[in-house]
């Protein structure tokens, strides 16, 4: 087995008995169960693990958590490859195959690193200023090819995912000391509590330090607290990242499941009455010249690698800090056997106990000192430490180089409040703690622990307990415990806290992934990008994959210094979800393929498939478009089906047409108010075509209304409007006319409706042996009859959308398929054949019948389609009436007309514009078009300015670049007298 040269001989929460083989950039390594990819790489001495986005500068592991900006990996190959994962978050497994993104052939030797030679030219706004001439599109293809990190999987994702909804009283985000205390306190108060943490085990920061908690080792405290949570029934989700906080306390959780042969990830939508954020804090790097060499690492991360993973990130470490936490890191590194070659603190006064403990271990801290330069090839080999004054300016003449293979830096801690910001909360800078804290809340929540600026463990535990109890409904304590400063009072000025300024020869990097320097921030400020939101977009600071977790606050600090403003006045950007990238598959869950957008199925769906129908989506229903047989083309099938209806009899499943039962003593009065037609005059057993408008007078829907009884109507709607019509009717009844005694019952799904259309329709209907006389004398056009067919109750309505004699037989939906089969059986002698939606559209187009939504839009009034006389004759008011009477509602309206090409062979594409002969502007457009097999030419409908009065006028149709001469005519191109209805 390969040696791991930087693995400590003991310690760490890893299983040394379970070695795991893995590969990085094509080379094989070994780590242990419990490692992350980052810790395993460090154990093997791999330092350069990635390249920056813009300049391809070498990058090493910076952190040990979700804030990682440098170690960005492409995992796996083929269909399961996943881009842009952080090595610090990848749990090591046997056979893991990772490679650095944005680097070729490897992170250590990247050909694109040549771009770094142009660093001095690539200042903020470079793209905007340079690639504007002569125009951007000249360069965009190349720049877009260079852009982006990682490679999206080229194949469909073979893994399975699950989405799930969940609920709780209190959701605690973060399983560290504060979160565990909060969960316990909330559960003890009787709340239903869920605790989530992104790590494999609870403990948070305590896992990465040797600290004692309440007189016992940290790991023992974690075990005890965990047992208490279990006893209290707290649901604990580990390996679960809270990625978004949305309105009404909806928290999105991304959970790693990795069930063998099952679900890989689960996306939970958790609705919590109260949310406790105990999400910890992110350590900030220091901004100083040449601060981006591999193995310049956050001090807390180096400590975590030593304590939690048993890895020495380097054997000879230097440390530079401006706060107390790096001292604790130094103690743990020393205990792990790592040499501290130098320790610099930018402050001039430090807690004496920390100084004493450090000296006791043989390390002399250099106060008022900081890093001003580094050497390495590319990994760090030495750091130049020099005195730094209160303004952050270094005195290079008094500095000294210190050898090291690891530089630990700590620039303070930023509470992890991304979720709080997503929830709508506002952040405020706290001068004492030198960080942004939660200020104004919008949703129900609380914050505890380091996320609340409580940086010591005891503070965090106490804060968690209080916030957890309040979350469960306990009263808010009268007074918070006395605020204890997280660190010793500092005499540093703000500017010194955010940057160490050297001689200006080497850049100081703020955003390590997008190569943004402090100089870039100052240039942006000088060019008047003073808002932090503008700075972000101009420099791309914080816009990388890590979303600026380690760089944003430093960038804001540098900007504040450049603007000579307090940092509180600069503010922060708004954080957006997700906190950490989420695999798209997890969000989709089971909703793949046909489950993505479920389409409704006809009662005769199986029969349609047997007939070889091509099924397509029409208004949310899967309906037969056409039935191509024996190599027939789509167009040939449509023409054949349409002609068959004209010559024999066609069968069509019309079930999706909306059906609403409108009942009650005031049903007729209600429908009179809703429709432009007078519905109350329909006699029982009769039908009428009716138009429905919206409040603006535009046509909203049409359909046939059947009167079943004095107090009951069956209202027909278009299939796409069926559900909405029911809601709309209820809206009017409940909000506007509560005095009307009307009941609306949607019954679209209750009835299968089979349409028989064509000259042989009556013969076929008779062959079905209905229990009533269906002759013309008893069942004339636009009437209906209740009957039985095959012992089943049916309603036969004689209505037509094809212009042919036509009957719609409605039967309880579960018997619809049987009726369809029976029609085909008994209709064989009459030449019955099914026809699809496309043929029906041709038939209605020949007749000039309206298709609402195709021939109308939100600006179509009844008078535009020939229903003005019907509407204006009506005395009583109805929805939309007043709007249709406005002056501009009758002025040069676009009206429905037929359009016929002067050449028989010319066809129009729907949407083609219509221009007057010699004119230049559009006067309307083609709304429906197709070949009429019965007429042997193309027919079209359209809406044209003043079209009704222009029948016979020649116009130009601008059709896909061609000008086609055409003539305006009546919409009805076939059988204008309607004789076919009675054939």
């Amino acid at each position, binding site marked *: 087995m390969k040696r791991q040269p930087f693995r400590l001989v003991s310690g760490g929460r890893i299983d040394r008995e379970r070695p795991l083989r893995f590969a990085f950039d094509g080379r094989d390594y070994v780590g242990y169960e419990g490692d992350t990819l980052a810790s395993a790489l460090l154990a093997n001495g791999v330092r350069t693990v990635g390249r920056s986005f813009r300049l391809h500068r070498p990058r090493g592991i910076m952190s040990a958590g979700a804030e990682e900006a440098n170690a960005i990996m492409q995992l796996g190959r083929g269909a399961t490859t996943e881009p842009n994962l952080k090595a610090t978050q990848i749990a090591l497994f046997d056979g893991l195959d990772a490679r650095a993104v944005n680097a070729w052939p490897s992170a250590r030797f990247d050909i694109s690193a040549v771009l770094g030679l142009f660093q001095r030219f690539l200042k903020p706004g470079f793209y905007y200023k340079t690639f504007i001439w002569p125009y951007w599109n000249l360069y965009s293809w190349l720049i877009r090819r260079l852009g982006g990190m990682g490679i999206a999987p080229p194949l469909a994702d073979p893994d399975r995912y699950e989405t799930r*909804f969940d609920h709780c009283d209190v959701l605690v985000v973060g399983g560290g000391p504060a979160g565990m205390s909060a969960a316990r306190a909330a559960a003890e108060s009787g709340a239903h509590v869920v605790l989530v943490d992104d790590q494999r085990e609870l403990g948070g920061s305590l896992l990465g330090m040797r600290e004692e908690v309440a007189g016992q080792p940290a790991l023992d405290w974690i075990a005890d607290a965990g047992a208490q949570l279990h006893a209290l029934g707290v649901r604990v989700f580990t390996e679960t990242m809270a990625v978004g906080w949305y309105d009404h306390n909806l928290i999105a959780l991304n959970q790693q499941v990795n069930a063998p042969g099952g679900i890989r990830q689960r996306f939970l939508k958790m609705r919590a009455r109260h949310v406790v954020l105990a999400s910890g804090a992110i350590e900030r790097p220091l901004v100083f010249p040449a601060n981006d060499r591999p193995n310049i690492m956050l001090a807390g991360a180096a400590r975590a690698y030593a304590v939690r993973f048993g890895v020495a990130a380097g054997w000879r470490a230097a440390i530079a800090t401006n706060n107390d936490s790096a001292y604790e890191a130094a103690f743990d590194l020393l205990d792990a056997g790592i040499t501290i070659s130098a320790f610099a603190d930018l402050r001039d006064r430090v807690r004496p106990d920390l100084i004493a403990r450090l000296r006791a271990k043989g390390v002399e801290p250099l106060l008022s000192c900081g890093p001003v330069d580094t050497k390495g090839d590319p990994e760090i080999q030495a750091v130049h430490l020099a005195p730094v004054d209160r303004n952050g300016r270094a005195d290079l003449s008094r500095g000294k180089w210190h050898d090291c293979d690891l530089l630990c830096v700590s620039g303070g801690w930023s509470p992890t409040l991304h979720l709080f910001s997503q929830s709508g909360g506002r952040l405020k800078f706290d001068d004492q703690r030198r960080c942004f804290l939660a200020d104004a809340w919008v949703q129900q929540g609380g914050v505890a622990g380091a996320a609340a600026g409580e940086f010591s463990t005891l503070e965090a535990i106490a804060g968690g307990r209080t916030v957890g109890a309040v979350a469960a409904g306990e009263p808010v304590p009268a007074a918070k415990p006395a605020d204890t400063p997280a660190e010793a009072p500092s005499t540093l000025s703000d500017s010194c806290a955010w940057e160490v300024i050297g001689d200006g020869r080497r850049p100081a990097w703020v955003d390590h992934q997008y190569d943004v320097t402090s100089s870039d921030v100052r240039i942006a400020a000088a060019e008047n990008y003073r808002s932090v939101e503008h700075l972000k977009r101009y420099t791309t600071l914080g816009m990388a994959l890590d979303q600026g977790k380690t760089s944003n606050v430093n960038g804001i600090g540098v900007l504040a210094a450049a603007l000579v403003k307090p940092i509180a006045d600069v503010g922060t950007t708004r954080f957006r979800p997700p906190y950490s990238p989420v695999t798209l598959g997890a969000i989709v869950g089971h909703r793949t393929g046909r489950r993505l957008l479920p389409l409704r199925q006809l009662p005769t769906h199986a029969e349609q498939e047997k007939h070889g129908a091509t099924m397509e989506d029409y208004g949310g229903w899967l309906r037969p478009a056409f039935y191509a047989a024996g190599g027939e083309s789509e167009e040939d099938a449509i023409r054949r089906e349409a002609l068959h209806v004209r010559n024999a009899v066609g069968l069509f499943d019309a079930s999706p047409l909306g059906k609403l039962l409108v009942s009650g003593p005031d049903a007729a009065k209600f429908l009179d108010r809703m429709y432009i037609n007078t519905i109350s005059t329909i006699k029982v057993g009769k039908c009428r075509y009716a138009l429905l408008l919206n409040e603006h007078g535009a046509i909203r829907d049409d359909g046939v209304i059947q009167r079943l009884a004095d107090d009951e109507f069956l209202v027909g709607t278009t299939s796409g409007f069926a559900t909405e019509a029911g809601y709309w009717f209820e809206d009017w009844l409940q909000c506007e006319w509560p005095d009307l005694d009307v009941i609306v*019952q949607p019954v679209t799904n209750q009835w299968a409706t089979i349409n028989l259309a064509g000259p042989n329709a009556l013969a076929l209907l008779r062959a079905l042996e209905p229990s009533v006389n269906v002759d013309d004398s008893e069942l004339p056009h636009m009437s209906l009859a209740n009957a039985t067919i095959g012992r089943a109750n049916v309603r036969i309505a004689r209505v037509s959308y094809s212009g042919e004699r036509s009957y719609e037989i409605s039967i309880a939906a579960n018997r619809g398929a049987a009726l369809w089969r029976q029609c085909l059986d008994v209709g064989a002698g009459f030449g019955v054949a099914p026809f699809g939606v496309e043929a029906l559209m041709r038939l209605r187009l020949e007749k000039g019948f309206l298709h609402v939504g195709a021939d109308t839009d939100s600006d179509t009034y009844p008078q535009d389609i020939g229903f003005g006389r019907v509407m204006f004759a009506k005395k009583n008011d109805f929805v939309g009436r007043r709007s249709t009477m406005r002056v501009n509602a009758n002025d040069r309206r676009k009206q429905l007309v037929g359009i016929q090409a002067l050449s028989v062979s010319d066809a129009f594409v729907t949407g083609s514009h219509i221009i007057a002969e010699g004119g230049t502007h559009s006067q309307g457009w083609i709304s429906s078009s197709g070949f009429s097999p019965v007429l042997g030419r193309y027919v079209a409908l359209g809406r044209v300015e003043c079209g009704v009065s222009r029948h016979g006028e020649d116009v130009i149709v601008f059709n896909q670049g061609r000008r086609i001469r055409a003539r305006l005519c009546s919409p009805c191109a076939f059988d204008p007298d309607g004789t076919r209805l009675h054939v």
Partner: protein
Amino acid sequence: MFELQSQSPLDHFVQLPIEAPGVRISEIPDVAIFGLSVSRTGDAAEAARDVIGAALPSAPNSSVAQGNLWVTWMTPTQWRLTTTRADAPALLTSLERLKPALWAFDISDALCAISIDGARASDLLSTGVPIDLHPRRFSTGCAAATLFHTIPVHIQQAHEAPAYRILVERSLAHALCNHLVEAARFLAPACTATKGIEVSAA
């Protein structure tokens, strides 16, 4: 005289019942369903009690059971009644006598009734249903009109076991079952256990 046979919307698409660890999905056969609406001006509650043997429930999202018959609150003036197909004709005749105070509509073919039961029934439903099905919020007798992803469903909890009845529009029944069967096949553990902490059954 030929006879037109009745056929479930699921006959050709999903082979039910489906059994997976902790959950069973089946179609409830021979269910008759009526929509009941009271007139805005009438008072039909007492009259309905005489016909169905129970008062129409007045609490939102509640239901009452009377033998094979279930009545579920839908809105302040609407209820949904389920019974067996055998009992339906006589019941409908009796209900129709209550017009115009109460209107009964036969919507048996408009809806498909599906049963989900087993220890993990609520886990399965929670893969698509956004409401809280925890026994503290949703117990036996509770009912709710909600969505399974984008599919409108009506859920009743029939037993504490738990067992749920789902009513779904017949045209979307196959889509719902497709979801449920897929989710049941790969139903993941309730949550990930932490080292040293067992999964809470809640």
